[in-house]
C-alpha cells in the first residue's frame, strides 16, 4: 500500500514541479552547507594527520625540567638499547631576528645533533643535513627551512653561502623540503645548527630540556615510552619534572579537537537546515490551503484521513529529499571548487551522501507532519465548497 501512497504523492509533486523546486531551496542550502562544512572539517583533519604522520609516527617527545642536574648528560645513550630507541636528538632552541625589506623577521634556531634529520623525517631539497663531523667538531654549519633562502638570500646561490647568526658566520650546507605549519610553528622558518652553539647562544634555554626520540618500531612505541618513563622516574623524584608523549598521542588530541570543531561548525550550519524546514512547513501549509478543493474531492471519493495525511507527508518528504539530492550536488561542486583553488583536498564520502539523505528525510517528516495533519482534518463539505 505504501507504493500507492508514494505514487499519489509523487504524481502530485510532479504536477506542481515549479513550486516543489522552489520549496527545496531552503533544504538545498541547509544540506549543502552542512555537508560542505563537515567534509571541509574532515579534510582538514586528514590533512593535519598526514602532516603529523609525515614527521614520523615513531616519534616520541620528552621534555624534562632538571635544575639540579640529577639526570646524567648521557642518559639517552644509556637506555638506547634497552628502550629500543633507534635514534635521538636533544633540541635547544631560540630565535634570531633579521631585517628584511625594513621589517623584522623572526627565524627559529634549533640546535640539534646529526640524528635530528632522521628523527624528524626531514627531506632535503639541496645539500645535506648536519653530519656527525659538524656536530662532534662543533663546525659552523647551518641547514635552512624551505622559506629561508628566498627571504634571506634573494637572487643568490644559497649552498656554501654564509649566514650570520648572533654575529657568527655559518656556512649553509643544506635546505629542507617544505613541511608546512604545525603545533611547533612554521617548520619552514626554522634553521638547524649543531647543538653546542645554541647551548652557548641561549644559555637560559628555558626551563625544559627537549628530546626527540625515534622508537625502533611503531608497534613497540609503548614499550619505549614506558622504559624511558621508568628510567626518568629513578632520577627525577617528581613526575611533574618530565613529560613524555608520542606523535600518535598528539595526533589523537589534535584529531579530537578538530572533530569537535567540525561538529560545532556543522551544528551551526544545521540551523540553516531548520530554517529550511520551517520554509517547507510554510509552503506546505500554503499548498494545503490552495489544494483544499482537491482534498475535498479526494475525501468525497473515499480518501480516509490517514490517506490524506500520508499523501501530504510523503509529498513533503519527496520535496525535501529532492532538496537533499540537489544540496549534495551543490556541495559536491563546492568541494571541487575548494579543492581546485585551495590546498585543501575536500572529499565527499558515502557518509555525506547518507547523511544528507537522512537529514532531508527527517526535515521532511518533522516539518511536513503539521501541514499534513491540517490537510487530513478538513471537513469534506467545507473543503468542496472552497473556491
Amino acid at each position, binding site marked *: *500500500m505504501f507504493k*500507492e501512497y508514494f505514487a*499519489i504523492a509523487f*504524481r*502530485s509533486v510532479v*504536477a*506542481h514541479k515549479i513550486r516543489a523546486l522552489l520549496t527545496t531551496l531552503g533544504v538545498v542550502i541547509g544540506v549543502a552547507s552542512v555537508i560542505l562544512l563537515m567534509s571541509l572539517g574532515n579534510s582538514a583533519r586528514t590533512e593535519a594527520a598526514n602532516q603529523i604522520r609525515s614527521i614520523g609516527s615513531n616519534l616520541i617527545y620528552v621534555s624534562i625540567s632538571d635544575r639540579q642536574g640529577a639526570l646524567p648528560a648521557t642518559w639517552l645513550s644509556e637506555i638506547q638499547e634497552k628502550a629500543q630507541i633507534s635514534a635521538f636528538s636533544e633540541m635547544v632552541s631560540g630565535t634570531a631576528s633579521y631585517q628584511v625589506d625594513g621589517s623584522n623577521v623572526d627565524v627559529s634556531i634549533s640546535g640539534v645533533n646529526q640524528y635530528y634529520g632522521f628523527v624528524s623525517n626531514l627531506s632535503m631539497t639541496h645539500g645535506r643535513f648536519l653530519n656527525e663531523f659538524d656536530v662532534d667538531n662543533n663546525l659552523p654549519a647551518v641547514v635552512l627551512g624551505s622559506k629561508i633562502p628566498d627571504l634571506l638570500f634573494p637572487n643568490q646561490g644559497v649552498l656554501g653561502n654564509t649566514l650570520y647568526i648572533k654575529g657568527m658566520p655559518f656556512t649553509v650546507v643544506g635546505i629542507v623540503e617544505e613541511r608546512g605549519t604545525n603545533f611547533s610553528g612554521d617548520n619552514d622558518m626554522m634553521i638547524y645548527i649543531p647543538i653546542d652553539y645554541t647551548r652557548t647562544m641561549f644559555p637560559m634555554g628555558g626551563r625544559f630540556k627537549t628530546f626527540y626520540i625515534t622508537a625502533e618500531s611503531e608497534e613497540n612505541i609503548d614499550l619505549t615510552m614506558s622504559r624511558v618513563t621508568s628510567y626518568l622516574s629513578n632520577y627525577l623524584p617528581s613526575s611533574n619534572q618530565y613529560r613524555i608523549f608520542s606523535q600518535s598521542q598528539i595526533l589523537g588530541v589534535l584529531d579530537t579537537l578538530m572533530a569537535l570543531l567540525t561538529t560545532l561548525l556543522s551544528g551551526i550550519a544545521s540551523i540553516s537546515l531548520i530554517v529550511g524546514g520551517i520554509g517547507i512547513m510554510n509552503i506546505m501549509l500554503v499548498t494545503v490551503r490552495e489544494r483544499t*478543493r*482537491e482534498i*475535498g*474531492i*479526494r*475525501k*468525497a*471519493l*473515499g*480518501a*480516509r*484521513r*490517514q*490517506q490524506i495525511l500520508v499523501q501530504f507527508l510523503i509529498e513533503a518528504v519527496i520535496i525535501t529529499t529532492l532538496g537533499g539530492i540537489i544540496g549534495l550536488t551543490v556541495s559536491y561542486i563546492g568541494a571541487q571548487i575548494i579543492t581546485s583553488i585551495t590546498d585543501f583536498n575536500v572529499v565527499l564520502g558515502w557518509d555525506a551522501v547518507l547523511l544528507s539523505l537522512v537529514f532531508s528525510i527527517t526535515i521532511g517528516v518533522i516539518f511536513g507532519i503539521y501541514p499534513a495533519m491540517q490537510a487530513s482534518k478538513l*471537513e*469534506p*463539505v467545507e473543503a*468542496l465548497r472552497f473556491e
Partner: protein
Amino acid sequence: MINIQEVTKRYEMGSNIVMALDGITLDIHEGEFVAIVGPSGSGKSTLMNIIGCLDIVTSGTYVLNQIPIQEYDQDELADIRNQQIGFIFQQFNLLPSFTAIENVMMPMTYAKVAKKQRELKAAQLLQTVGLGDRMDHKPTELSGGQQQRVSIARALANDPAIILADEPTGALDSKTGKEVLTLLKTLNSNGKTVIVITHDQEVARFANRVITLKDGRVASDLAKEEVYV
C-alpha cells in the same frame, strides 16, 4: 435503501441561524430516478451532502442500506462514500493536473484495487461514456460535456448503487446537458439508483419521481405521471 426521518440541518453563523433542512422525511428505493427540485437556497445541496455522507444531520436519522449513518465516524463514512455512492458535481470537480483516466482511477485507488485492474476498469468506463480516445487528456483539454462524462465514469468506478448528481447540467449548454442526462437515464435503466438535484424543470422530466423542496421542507413528492398530466 435510503431512509430519512425528521432530518434537520442547522447552520449557525454568529447570531444568524439557518435551518437549511427543517424536518425532512423521505424514502428512496433501489432503482429509482429521483429529481430534487426547488428554488435556490431551499436546501437541495444540503440534502444531497447528507444523503452522500459528506455531512451529518443536526437531528433526525438517516439510514442507508440498514446503516445508521450518524453512528459512523469520518473514516467509516469515507469508506461508505467510496463503495456505495458516486458523486457528480456541477463544477465536475476533476483534479486538473491529472489525466482523464487518472481521475477515473482515483476512487479505486482508495478502494485498494490493484493497479492493473484499475487501469482496465477505468479505460472500460471511459469507453462506455464515449471518451475512449480521450483517456490521456487533462480536464483542461476537454469540453465541459466531456469533463462531465469523465466525472460520470469516475462516479461509476467502484460500482456504487447510488449516483448523486448536484446540478449536473448546470455548467453545460442544453444539448450536452441532455446527453449527460440521457447517460444518467441509461445508468438508471441498468439498475443504478439516480438522484439528480436541479432547479430546472426540463431536467426533472428525465426522472420518475420529483421531490420539491421549499425552505428546507418537502413541498411535494410526486411520481412522474402526477407531475406532467
